[in-house]
Each structure stands twice: as structure tokens, then as C-alpha cells.
């Protein structure tokens, strides 16, 4: 007995067997995973199952033991996972086409159910993807395009989430959130006509701005004219007769005095002209 035990090869052999045994009995469950223990192909129990509101450190994660070779561990993600919907065309009730990208976030809350119905997370995602697509098409198809751009959008998303959640429950998953990532007008006619509408709206705005500017300018000018007229009237109104004389004098000067671009003036005067009164000599 003892010589056999002293043989290093035997020791190594025993050590390896022990190690394999320990390795297949104990396992560490990280916080990010849930473990379904499967005994001979039958799911037996769940370790570190998700419970809402449990702090990390109080979960079932940690060192676990199982029957070696008879029980297998199936790992299932405990974190929030995502499903992305491929870009889809959706037709609203007012016959507008929209291209919609959406995503949903879900979490596996019943690993046993999920293991039985889908086996892997990928298959859950694959199952949820078309349902997300059809839920979105149904909901958006019932509404007008403008709803998407209104506060009602929240209600819309809640409806989609409810529809998706109903299906997700069958796979042991819970939908945390559904969000529309993009909702665009598809390339081609719809986008072009939207651009055209924007363009014409801008042109109209530009025209309106110009007209407003013209209007304001005219008002400013008219006000200035009125102001000037009032100033003149105030000053000249003191003696209209003198103003007539004063202004006539100014006017003669401007009219008859030879300026830069004026022709020479010739004046033919009658001797009766007042200016020439003294010229004739007075008949006293």
C-alpha cells in the first residue's frame, strides 16, 4: 500500500482525479448569470434567479455544488439584453410611409421557462424580433403619422411594450423597455416631397420677411416726412405771408441762378416790373 502511494505517478494520477471531481462538483455563479441545473437532461433547479429589487451581494450568486457528471449547468444571462428590430417600412393611416428602427430591452426572469421553451438567449431574441416588428406595424398602422411626433407617442410605446411583453412571458422574459430609435421618411418621393415642402415654406418665409422689411421702411420714411412737415408748419405758421415772401426769394435764387448743369437764363422784363420801379425814375 504505502510504496504504491509513494510513487509520484500514482500521486499525480490521484491528484488529477480529485481535481476533476472538484472541478465538476463546484462552480462559481457570477452576478451576471443565472444557472439552470440540468440533471440527466431534466431541468432541476435554478440558481441566482433574477428577483426584482435585490441588491448585488444578496443574490444567489457564489459558490455552488452539484452532483458531478450527473448534473450539468446551463448558463443564462441575468443582465438586460437587447433585441434590435431591422429597419421596417410602416404605413400610417394617412398613407404615409415611415422607416422605423426600434429596439427592445428585456431580461430573463424565469430561466426555467426560458430553458424549456427556447434553450438559449439568442433564440429568445430571434423569437421576439418578428413580434416586435409586427407589434410596431400594428400600432403605427392604427394611427396618423403626426401621432409619432406628438406626446401620444408615449402611449403608443406602452401599447407596443405590452404586446411584446405578453409574448416574451412565454419565453420566461420580461420586456423592460421598447423604444423607437429612428422613424424616417423613406428615400425617394416621400423624402423629396418633404424637402420640397420645406423649401417652399422657406421661400414663403423669405418673401414675407422681405415684405415686412419694405413695410417697416416705408413707415419709417412716412413718419419722418410727417415729422418734418410738422416742424415746418410750426415754424412757418407763425407768419404765412412772410413765409410766402421768404420762400419765393429762396426759390428765385435756386431757379434763376446759373448752377452747374443749368442753362443760362434770359429774363425779359417789362418796365412795369416792381424791380424797375425806381429805374424809370419817379414821377412825383
Amino acid at each position, binding site marked *: 500500500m504505502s510504496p504504491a502511494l509513494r510513487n509520484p505517478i500514482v500521486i*499525480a494520477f490521484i491528484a488529477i482525479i480529485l481535481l476533476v471531481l472538484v472541478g465538476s462538483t463546484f462552480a462559481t455563479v457570477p*452576478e451576471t448569470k443565472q444557472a439552470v441545473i440540468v440533471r440527466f437532461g431534466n431541468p432541476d433547479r435554478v440558481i441566482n434567479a433574477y428577483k426584482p429589487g435585490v441588491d448585488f451581494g444578496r*443574490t444567489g450568486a457564489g459558490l455552488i455544488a452539484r452532483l458531478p457528471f450527473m448534473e450539468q449547468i446551463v448558463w443564462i444571462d441575468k443582465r438586460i439584453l437587447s433585441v434590435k428590430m431591422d429597419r421596417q417600412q410602416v404605413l400610417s393611416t394617412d398613407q404615409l410611409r415611415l422607416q422605423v428602427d426600434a429596439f427592445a430591452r428585456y431580461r430573463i426572469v424565469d430561466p426555467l421557462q426560458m430553458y424549456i421553451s427556447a434553450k438559449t438567449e439568442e433564440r429568445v431574441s430571434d423569437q421576439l424580433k418578428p413580434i416586435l416588428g409586427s407589434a410596431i406595424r400594428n400600432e403605427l398602422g392604427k394611427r396618423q403619422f403626426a401621432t409619432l411626433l406628438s406626446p401620444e407617442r408615449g402611449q403608443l410605446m406602452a401599447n407596443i411594450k405590452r404586446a411584446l411583453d405578453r409574448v416574451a412571458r412565454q419565453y420566461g422574459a420580461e420586456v423592460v423597455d421598447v423604444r423607437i430609435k429612428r422613424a424616417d421618411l423613406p428615400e425617394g418621393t416621400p423624402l423629396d416631397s418633404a*424637402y420640397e415642402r420645406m423649401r417652399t415654406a422657406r421661400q414663403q418665409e423669405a418673401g414675407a420677411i422681405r415684405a415686412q422689411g419694405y413695410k417697416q*421702411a416705408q413707415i419709417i*420714411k412716412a413718419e419722418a416726412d410727417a415729422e418734418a412737415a410738422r416742424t415746418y408748419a410750426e415754424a412757418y405758421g407763425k407768419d404765412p405771408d*412772410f413765409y410766402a415772401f*421768404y420762400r419765393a426769394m429762396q426759390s428765385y435764387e435756386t431757379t434763376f441762378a446759373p448752377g452747374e448743369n443749368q442753362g443760362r*437764363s434770359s*429774363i425779359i422784363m417789362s418796365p412795369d416790373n416792381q424791380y424797375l420801379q425806381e429805374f424809370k425814375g419817379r414821377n412825383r
Partner: protein
Amino acid sequence: MATFFGWGARLGAMMNENRGGPWGPSGGGGGSGDGDGGGPRNPWGQPPRRRRTPGTGTNVSSIDDFLRRSRERFGGRFPHQEGRPYWLYGLGVFVLLWLLFTCFHLIGPQERGVVTLFGKYSRTVNSGIAMTLPLPIERLQKVDVGQIRTRDIGSPDASQENLILTGDQNIIDVAYSVRWTIRDPQLYLFQINDPESTIGEVAESAMRAVLATVSLDDAIGAGRSDIESRVSQVMQQVLDRYGAGVRIEGIAIKQSDPPATVNNAFKEVSAAQQEAQSYINQARAYAQQQTARAQGDAAAFDKVYAEYKLAPEVTRRRMYYETMERVLSKVDKTVVEADGVTPYLPLPQVQRQAQEGAAR
């Protein structure tokens, strides 16, 4: 066993060339699998030799020397000669190094260490030197909580437009970036699969949701900062609902323009604004001139009138003659003298004089 060891030593010698690189800790980590009977095969099997030549320290003085010795060992004597097998020492040193590297952790000033005990969250340690149990039992993951991470969405490049519908069914091209930090390291590590792309997607959906409530003019102009704060608020709410352990530090809208195809129409609007403004400026200039001229004229009249009031008749006459003087001194005058004679006006002569005057 002896052959085993010999090979182990050779292997160790070959590994030697790599020593000094980042081999220390990671080699130890890789060795976790052969902590069993494979101990001697580990590159750490060399330390016994170090015991024999104490002066060399951890660095091997000469590879040749080492090779020669190991060859000698391989070819000739058995290692059992000293009573204890070398690999036991090797194992001892290996375990010591293992403990050293997996029990003590240096955590930088901006980092936190999340410690898990057999995978179960145990505690979060602050910066400094942290001690944990050795690796298979406790594990420490460092998370940088001070670093502000940025995620860009859309680009200011014209070729890649990130088109978004606004509340008044217009389309704008938006580029923005999200700045975020890790608030709760343990939530960040355990709660969400792929947090970074989650943040990107949440940002996109939040931006679109917010823009769907504002008008085009707000989105390209004055409403930007309001949009930024609303988006980061929405994002924070959504991520908190996920329990992501992330704090949104802010959104920066780098660009929000109308799409390139309609940009000309938008430029036309600003051109129209300029034009309208120039109309108004011109009108203002005219107005100032008009008012000033009126005031000047009125003031001049007032002055003259004040003088006129003192001696109306004389002033009037004086002004009349002075004006007539100025006017008539520079023009051609013809006085038709006789009464009863039909005045004959030599029109050609008048015209000629006028031409001469113009030519002069």
C-alpha cells in the same frame, strides 16, 4: 520524474527569454489550470536554481550558463540527490508570487475596484492599495469612474446625414455627442449587457423623442440648449430604469442644420432678413436726413423771422433787392421799354447766347 524535471528546466530556459515582459502576473493567471501535478512544467520551475546561485537575484545572469547547467543536470545526476524535490520549491515560489499578484491591487485615484467572492458581489473598494483573497476565491475588477467617456452620434460630415423629424414634420440633420461617466461600478458591470451600445441607442431614441416635440426653428436655433438638457434628462431616466449605473454628464449638439438639399432655401431666408434689414437702415437714414433738414430750415426761418419782426417793411425790401441782385446779375436781361410796341423777342439770338454760355 527526473526526465520531467529536466524538460521543465529546459522549457524554463526557453521561457527565460521572455522574462521581464508582462509575463509575471499573466503567466501566473494562465497557470491556474495546472496548479496540480503540472507544477514542474511551469516556467516558474526555475527558482530552485536561484537558490543555488543566490547572487543573481531574479534576473538570470547568462542564458548560456543556465543552459549548460540544465544540460548537465539532464544528462547526469538525478535531482533527488538533495533529498527534497526541486519542484516543491518551485511550487512554493509560484504560490507566493500568485498570492502577491492576486491579493494586492493598486487602484488608481479615478478607479474603483469591484470585488466578487466566488462570483458573488462582495464590496467596492476605493482607490489606494486594496487587499483581497487570492484569485480563485476573490476577484477584483477595476472600473475607471473618473473618466468622462464620449459617444458621438451622427457626424458634421455632409456625406453622412443623421436625419431627424421635428415636431412640425420638417427634417434636420443633427450631430451630437453624449458624455457619460460610470456612477455605480457594480451596476455598470452586472446590470446590462453591452452598456456602451445601450447608451448610444438610448441617446438616439431620446434625441428623436425630444426633437419630435420641438419646431424646426427651435431645433436649428434658439432651442438648442433646451433640447440638450431635455435629452440628457430623458436619457438619465431611461438608464436609471435599466439600472445601468451610468451618469449622463451632458449632451453637446455639434450641428443641427437643415439637410443639404434644402439648405439653399434656408440661406435665402437669411438673405431676405439681410435685405429687409437694409431696407430699414436706408429708411432710417432718409428719416434722419429729413428731420434734420426740416429742423435746420425751421431754425433758419425762425432767425430771419425774428429779425423781420423788428422792422418788417425795411427787411422785406432789403431781402427783395438783395435776392434780385444776386439773381439778375448773373442772367441775361432784356428790358422792353416802350409801351404800345409789340415786343420782339430775338429768339435765335437768345438761343445762341445760351449755347455760348453752355460752352464757356
